């Protein structure tokens, strides 16, 4: 059974991704670094409707935090009632508790395939290159002529860890910014502790991974993080990041491209975010709207 799942995964998701990555490298001036960036952007753009759904659901959930805290406080001794009231609140606000999880899980296989494809095409050793051979499309002569892919990009070798530490630091910083933008200040101390832990743990772990993993993966993580930051900004602004970096609060550029007075966006004391009042202008790249 696991073998069958592995075969289905290879045929439907992994093999197309690997072969497209190789062909795209040829198109993009034989530059694997550019290809990783381009393919990451392309996939994130294609999955944007799901990402947007996830971000919106997450924002709605953030907006409900004070009311949830209120319910929890009010029915502290009656958990069942608290849960019931909470569900009623979700229903009233049109929020699904799984609203931010489902889109994320849906995108996960695609991200995972991209990650696996990058690892495989980097083929840092004979074992890895031999493993790659079975994923190539027999009818695509170009992929056979293109392998192995050139691994130099900017100052680093995509097949080796960046010893100058620039990429690992970029991974950590970009991930922290993205996490910070999407992590609301929570009135529940337990949840706030969890959120703070994740805020630091994830960037620290990925920075650490980047010290030993091929730079190609670090490049993918940095690109993906930057895209996430841009998407997050367009959906809900700087969010809690503006609490840390006050200069972001002064004049926050609204998602629509206009200017929003951030006093409207961030409420003092509670620090929760609310929907920007300015109407969003449709961006030319938001073709699905």
């Amino acid at each position, binding site marked *: 059974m696991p*073998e069958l799942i592995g*075969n289905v995964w290879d045929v439907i998701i992994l093999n197309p991704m690997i072969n497209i990555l190789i062909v795209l490298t040829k198109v993009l001036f034989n530059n694997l670094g550019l290809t990783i960036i381009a393919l990451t952007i392309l996939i994130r753009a294609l999955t944007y409707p799901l990402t947007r759904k996830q971000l919106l659901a997450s924002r709605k*959930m953030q907006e409900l935090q004070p009311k*949830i805290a209120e319910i929890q406080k009010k029915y502290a001794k009656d958990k069942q009632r608290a*849960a019931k009231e*909470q*569900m009623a609140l979700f229903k009233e606000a049109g929020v699904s*508790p*799984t609203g931010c*999880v489902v889109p994320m899980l849906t995108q*996960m296989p695609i991200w995972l395939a991209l*990650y*696996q494809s990058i*690892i495989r095409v*980097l083929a*840092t*050793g*004979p*074992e*890895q*290159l*031999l*493993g790659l*051979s*079975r994923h*190539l499309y*027999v009818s695509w*002569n170009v992929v*056979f*002529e293109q*392998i*192995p892919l050139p691994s130099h990009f900017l100052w680093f070798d995509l097949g080796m*860890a960046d010893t100058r530490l620039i990429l690992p630091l970029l991974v950590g910083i970009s991930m922290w910014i993205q996490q910070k933008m999407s992590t609301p200040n929570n009135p*529940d101390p*337990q*949840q706030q502790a*969890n*959120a703070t*832990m*994740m805020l630091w743990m*994830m960037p620290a*772990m*990925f920075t650490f*991974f980047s*010290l*030993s*993993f*091929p730079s190609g*993966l670090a490049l993918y993580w940095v690109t993906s993080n930057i895209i996430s930051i841009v998407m997050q900004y367009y959906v809900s602004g700087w969010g809690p990041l503006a609490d840390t970096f006050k200069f972001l609060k002064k004049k926050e550029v609204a998602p629509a491209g206009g200017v929003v007075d951030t006093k409207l966006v961030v409420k003092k004391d509670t620090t929760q975010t609310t929907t920007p009042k300015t109407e969003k202008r449709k961006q030319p790249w938001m073709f699905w709207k």
Partner: protein
Amino acid sequence: MNRKLNTILIIALAAILISLGLAGCSGSVAKKGWAGVSAIDDTLIFVNMSGNIYSIDSTNNTVVGTPVKFQITSSGGISCLPSSCGGSSTSPIASYSSPSINGDMAIIGGNDGRVRAYPYLDGQLRENIRWTYPPDTSLGYSIIGGLALSGDKVFFASVNGTIYALNAAEGYKVWSTDLGTKIWSAPAVDGDTVYISGFDKNLYALNAADGTIKWQYQTNGAMSATPIVDNGIVYVGGYDRTFYAISTTTHQLVWKFPTAGNTSNVPDNWFWVTPIIHNGLIYAANLDGKVYVLDAATGRLNRVVDFATGFQKPGISSTPVVVDDLVVVAVTDLTKSTTKVNSATASKIFAINTVTGGQSELTNFKESINSPLVAHNDKVYVHTSIDNLFVVNPQNGATQSISLTASTSK
């Protein structure tokens, strides 16, 4: 509800991170090597994946004495962690080629970027290294391809594309030439010329005396297979699924297979391993699981040996070997695990009778085979991907596992 959701999210993310980490450790860092055995008289020298060099008495297939360590001590405590984190640790040096035997010495290239020469005395390899190149440090790049001995020199290339000639007796550098491309193949020496193939799709011919490039021939695909030279022709296959025969005198293409425009019998995968030449025929094994038998002079296809393996993705990733009139080939299912014993058959050993053209299955394993097959005293030695060593009788397929526990001491 919300708290539960958060907990689930945290657990899910942690699981993803851990799995990414593990995949990274095993997928991008670990290099185990796949060395074949070499023989000095009746002693087989075997470099295993655990960093030991065994001396095996081929008359009874038992280990002699204590294995010599083929390991490196690094400052990184855990292989997956950067060296700045954690204490020192000892790890095996991966080797992808059979040791080269120079009289009473076995010379071995390692993935750590060093070449070591071990003395052989009284039927056993000894620990006291005769010489190391570079003497005090590493080349900074792995040595994936094997070594080639010719005259008083040993030739090899590091993966960054520098080819070296060392004095085989004392290990000092005679010359080095930077070819500017990644190299995974071993050199082949014929007369005063060293031939080596590169990832830049070129076959290089260098002067064995001083390392100057005599000529080069550009193919359409990267190459990691070691070329062979016979009767004024260099033979090598590439990742473009094409097999080339290039004249050593005109430096031009003599023939290639498949010929341009030919759509039948086009191989489905790379020519990954060193070809065999026997009785005027080339046996070019391919990762598509077939052996293409070609006329060495004309390149005309004699026949395609398609092994009926029942494998999902049969491939030949192990260099075949000739024993008398038999070409012995290991066919591996490329979809099977290379790190554990599979529940089903993962590889089979076949013999092609070069006289009758017939083929027969000799034996099978639940382990993959990537190491080159090696013949000694009419037996074939097989090093599997999970580090077991077997001896196979190519006449009847009788297979014996060789225990790596020392039984005698000299």
